[in-house]
């Protein structure tokens, strides 16, 4: 096996737990894996941000502006440290599709930990790309993350062409118009899937639209809490 990130060979250590069992080697070496920072400890119940309050100030702000507070809660896996920034840049912007495989086990674990009770009827909905962006990148990173989850996936959201979120500042992001549209109604709870949670605007826009179209509850899972 060769590490997907640093291209060095991974030599698995033989321990009692893998000596008699077939086991699946990880696609990333230990050194690289250790540089990723899993979010731990006390976190905001709503947006997964590391904080000692139960609900962070950002989420309280969203609460005050009730109309937009449409997601039950968001769960994120990783902190947006330098390593993760480099990985996201190569994966999403350079277009190194296979790097998404690195996050497969983490996504499945996180789903089982946080959303297992929803397993029966929840539908995973990836945040879509606009057609123009799809033509540029050739793949949707959120789609790949949604594929890892052990639930039904449905691409029911669509997106208008517009400026990149990552090129705007905080206030501009929050004040953008809803870029999504939908062509059907839905009567099951939805788990939105995206790669980065920064201000939460994107997810809230998508959730608002889903709720308007009959969705009873919207949850979110994001790879990184920016």
């Amino acid at each position: 096996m060769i590490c997907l990130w640093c291209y060095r060979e991974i030599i698995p250590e033989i321990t009692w737990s893998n000596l008699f069992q077939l086991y699946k080697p990880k696609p990333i070496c230990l050194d690289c894996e250790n540089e990723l920072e899993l979010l731990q400890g006390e976190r905001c119940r709503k947006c997964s941000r590391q904080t000692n309050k139960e609900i962070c100030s950002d989420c309280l702000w969203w609460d005050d502006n009730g109309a937009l507070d449409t997601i039950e809660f968001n769960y994120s896996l990783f902190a947006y440290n330098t390593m993760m920034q480099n990985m996201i840049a190569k994966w999403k912007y350079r277009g190194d599709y296979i790097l998404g495989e690195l996050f497969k086990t983490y996504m499945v674990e996180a789903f089982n930990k946080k959303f297992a009770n929803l397993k029966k009827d929840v539908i995973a909905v990836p945040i879509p790309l606009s057609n123009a962006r799809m033509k540029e990148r050739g793949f949707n990173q959120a789609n790949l993350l949604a594929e890892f989850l052990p639930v039904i996936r449905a691409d029911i959201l669509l997106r208008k062409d517009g400026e990149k979120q990552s090129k705007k500042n905080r206030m501009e992001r929050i004040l953008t118009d809803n870029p999504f549209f939908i062509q059907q109604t839905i009567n099951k709870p939805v788990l939105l899937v995206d790669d980065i949670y920064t201000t939460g605007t994107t997810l809230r826009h998508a959730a608002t639209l889903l709720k308007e179209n009959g969705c009873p509850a919207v949850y979110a899972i994001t790879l990184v809490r920016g």
Partner: protein
Amino acid sequence: MQDYEMPPLHELSARFSGKLLLRKEIPLEETLFQQLLSLNYLTPKKAITRKNFTYQCERCGNQKHYLFANIPCGICKQRHLYCRKCIEMGRTSECEMLYYWTGPQFTWIFHENPCSWQGELTDVQQKAAQRIVTAIRNKERELLVWAVCGAGKTEMLFPGITDALQMGKRVCLATPRADVVRELQPRLQKAFSKVAIQALYGGSKDKQGTAQLIIATTHQLLRYEAAFDVMIIDEIDAFPYHADESLPFAANRATKAQCTTIYLTATPRKRHQMLINRKKLPHVFVPVRFHGQPLPVPKKTMCHSLKRDLSKNLPPAAFLKWIKVRQNPSRQLLIFVPSITLAENMKDHLYRILKLQGHFHSIEKLDSVHAADRDREQKVRAFREKEIFILITTTILERGVTFPSVDVAIFDAGHDVFDEAALVQISGRAGRSPDDPTGEVVFFHQGKTEAMIQAIDSIKKMNKRGGF
């Protein structure tokens, strides 16, 4: 033919001849682009080819399976390969084409008097420079210039480049390191003030690469095909050129059929030495530095507790002894260490110890630098301007940089990162100025290695060939 207004043909051919580009790298309107295709002015070829069980990326030459991956493409709606090796330059995938210019060739300017350099070459340099000129005139395929550290390689190239420009040839000076490109550009622009020169490296502002004289990192050559009449590759033994197969591949492809390739090095690798010995590779040897003094021969100093000291981030005891008895205490000091962490951690300890010793009055500033350091360029400049007195560095400063008057120490010279070439290069940092043509080089080690012995041997051998 439509009545579409085409930009003048010579403008297009200047922009695209010699280039090998993806569609997204060609900023032309679709109609014009299609028109050029139907005229056969642009020719497509597959970006990734399959042959039996092997794949090849046509841009970087990569054939390793683990550097390819499958992508379910949202553009062509099929699952196909893409190359992971050259992905930093924009993804090449199986559904894409690379385009190269097959329209009328651009004629480059015949410069009458391109060289504005006023300096003079020494006799030895002159001889080597003459050999380069002959090679270019006779369209010889290859020539290796083996010149000791500090022989003045760049200046030796000037007559050759001048000659090529006079004959309307296109010239590329490629080097593996971006630092060196940045250092070379102002020097060359000064020497050829009337010629348009472009410098290409990851993050350079001017990315067009359409000038007659181009200075580039070897990575940038991935975007060229059959472009240059004269290709000069500096430091062929340096990382990553000798380790990464796609760089020689790209450099070779960027040359025209009748191109002269000139390699420059101070420490040729085994393979090149073997080719020289078998007379398969013509070469010219420049054994003397431009100021005519021999290379400083390194001293080996055994330190019994070196590994223990270094693990505590302390300098070896023998170093503290040596620093008191340096021949010329006013020289700056360059300390090489094997790892980034050591460079960072030793800084404070060394400062404290040297201050405590008190033998070292002139200690103004001590700093460390390594590849991951953001202020790297600035620190190197500060050291050159003598604002920093002692600089702890990793191997990033082993080559391509000139400091006028330094002593050099290597901690743990037996470490794997210090191979023969690295040690010779590091020793070559000392005594580079005509005002202070000597300098001390000390290897602090715990058990000498083959690399150390061979490095010292080869320095002595070069001095001998230089007549010392």
